[in-house]
């Protein structure tokens, strides 16, 4: 057998009388992925359903340690690969080091893999390992394992505890009108949303505008002594400048991706994230914890920057969580349906991707949330969002994003509504962060049944907030 044949044979399988061969490890990974438009756009998707299953069969038999010996993006030219390899914790990996990818799936679903053992192996896992195993898992497997993972973080409250569901209150406005943003914020507070963060995507992304927005949010938070954190989701270099000018930065935000080149497309690298984190830590604004970073990710980001290096979009997405993990974030979320139908075509693809991203993040030890969302050119609607938010809450998602009436009037897409949070709390019995829950009670916003009071004329908090916002 020639060398080439030996290599080929490593990624081949006979399946139902037919032999399937794959050129290399990343082709196996791409072909094993659930069907999605982004991989088809990139020309990486399996050519048939049978080939897809064959790729999964090949993947299932590979030792998990393959991913430590074979970098999908070269170590020499990519700082994300170097981060993944250099930070790998061989001792933590030991309990699963002998397993194949298929064996790892079985172990994850076993009773032996409880919260403590999953937490213990997190630093021994690489993004490629968790992406690989996720490709062998059905949606229910992704949910069953995710809900066993616990990732607890803290700043002014404690997020990720069992039985809790956090929410980002996202009061965006097309012209950053301060009163309009305050109105959307107080509306959300009346539904008890905003424990994960009150976070604005600015319409005009510059330093003076960020300072004005932060000043307003911080004033509101202090006035009502809300145990939460606020954030203006501006570029990390703007946040550094805002901190230099004395701005009230609780959390530093940044979009991150799974390759050095894709991050360069965002105008960042690991060094600038480190610099920003150090600056935010120095402000010591946290009260119950000092997790000061907030990251967003999303399948398709690397491909749209033409920086995916032949990796399927789910695998390179998981690599973004290694970037996030390095900086001990308070919050990370995938913006799953935001990037558009050329990456995730319809509700089925968005739902699957949301569950995969959450699973991969949690397994790696990242406080994973999700912007359950879609755009108007995707084949999806609010029914699909109902399904995904229900599944993610069953999976123990750290937080979801909520906007007034599910309609983001600045970014022009649909996420979850404030009402949706009430549905999730009632259906699953999940609660906000404990400090925030106490605050809601203290402010008399909760009735005797533990429900948010109706926003009618008798609601005292409504009057207080409205008068304040209208002033």
């Amino acid at each position, binding site marked *: 057998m020639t060398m080439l044949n030996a290599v080929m044979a490593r990624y081949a399988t006979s399946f139902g009388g037919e032999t399937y061969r794959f050129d290399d490890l990343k082709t196996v990974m791409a072909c094993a992925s659930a069907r999605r438009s982004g991989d088809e*756009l990139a020309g990486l998707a399996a050519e048939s359903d049978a080939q897809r299953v064959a790729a999964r069969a090949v993947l299932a038999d590979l030792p998990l340690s393959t991913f430590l010996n074979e970098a999908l993006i070269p170590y020499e030219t990519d700082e994300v690969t170097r981060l993944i390899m250099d930070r790998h914790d061989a001792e933590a990996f030991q309990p699963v080091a002998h397993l194949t990818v298929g064996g790892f799936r079985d172990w994850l679903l076993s009773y032996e893999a409880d919260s403590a053992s999953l937490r213990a192996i997190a630093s021994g896992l690489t993004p490629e390992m968790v992406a690989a195993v996720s490709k062998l898992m059905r949606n229910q497997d992704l949910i069953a394992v995710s809900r066993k993972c616990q990732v607890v973080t803290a700043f002014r409250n404690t997020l990720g505890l069992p039985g809790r569901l956090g929410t980002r209150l996202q009061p*965006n406005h097309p012209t950053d009108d301060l009163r309009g943003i305050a109105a959307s914020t107080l509306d959300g507070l009346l539904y008890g949303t905003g424990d994960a963060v009150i976070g604005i995507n600015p319409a005009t*992304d510059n330093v003076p505008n960020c300072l004005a927005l932060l000043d307003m949010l911080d004033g509101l938070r202090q006035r009502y002594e809300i145990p939460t954190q606020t954030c203006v989701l501006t570029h990390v270099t703007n946040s550094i400048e805002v901190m230099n000018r004395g701005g009230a930065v609780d959390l530093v935000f940044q979009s991150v991706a799974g390759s050095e080149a894709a991050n360069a497309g965002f105008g960042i690298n690991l060094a600038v994230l480190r610099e920003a984190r150090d600056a935010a830590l120095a402000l010591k604004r946290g009260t119950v914890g000092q997790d000061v970073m907030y990251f967003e990710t999303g399948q398709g980001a690397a491909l749209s920057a033409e920086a995916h290096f032949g990796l399927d979009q789910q695998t390179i997405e998981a690599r973004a969580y290694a970037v996030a993990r390095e900086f001990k974030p308070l919050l990370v979320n995938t913006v799953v349906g935001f990037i558009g139908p*050329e990456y995730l075509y319809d509700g089925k693809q968005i739902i699957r991707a949301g569950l995969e991203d959450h699973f991969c993040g949690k397994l790696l030890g990242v406080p994973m949330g999700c912007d359950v969302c879609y755009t108007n*050119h995707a084949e999806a609607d609010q029914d699909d969002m109902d399904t995904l938010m229900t599944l993610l809450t069953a999976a123990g998602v750290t937080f979801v994003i909520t906007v007034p009436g*599910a309609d983001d*009037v600045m970014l*022009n*897409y649909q996420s979850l509504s404030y009402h949706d949070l009430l549905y999730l709390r009632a259906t699953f019995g999940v609660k906000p962060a404990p400090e925030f829950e106490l605050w809601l009670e203290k402010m008399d916003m909760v009735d005797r049944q533990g429900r948010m009071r109706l926003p009618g004329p008798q609601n005292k908090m409504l009057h207080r907030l*409205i008068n304040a916002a209208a002033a």
Partner: protein
Amino acid sequence: MPLPPEIDLWAKLRATTRARIGLGRVGDSMPTKDVLEFQLAHAKARDAVHTKLDTAALKTAIGGDIIEVRSAADSREIYLRRPDLGRQLHPDCAPLLKQGDYDAVFVIADGLSATAVSLNAVAMLQAALTRLHDFKIAPIVIATQARVAIGDDIGERLGAKICAILIGERPGLSVAESLGIYLTYNPKRGTRDSARNCISNIHTKGGLSYEVAADTLTWLMREALRRKLTGVDLKEEALLAAPAAAQALGTA
């Protein structure tokens, strides 16, 4: 339950934002009225994406010499899945574009909202043309299943120094009919997006007016010819020269 107007505490605040604030609640859920209003807005947005551009009506309204072309994306489904094909001129259409010597070409493209084009493109085009009497303008081109970069190929083949493409923007729930204009100096296949200037949010529901958009557009076109460029550098100069242009130029 929805409140009677006299005790609707939200009335004042609603004036500050288009966001769906102060909705009622039935138990934990949205009242029927709000659910249906949302569904109607979503339906309109989807219709804007999927409606075919009525090119015959558009040609009649514009009048004069008009060239109609299409992209390499043969259907809306392919268009949505394959942005790369929406950026390419269909090979059958190339012979329609004869090399000339023009200052500018205006391309009208469906993009993601044919509704935006039907409602706004003719008035926007007229507002621009009346300010450009001294320009040598190529025949108007209408492009379907088209994305912004199709203008590079069109402009190059026609020999136009500037391509201005008027295109339907991705519809939102509150506005499904927003028009954008992308300006490219020396259009050539493979031009980077950073070499373009964009004026977005042009519509009659509280967006940028045709007049303001046309002032900004024609100022940029004259500067583009003089400085022989479009893109980030031109945008920064525009903001310095005319701070009022900030709204029109957006943050893209």
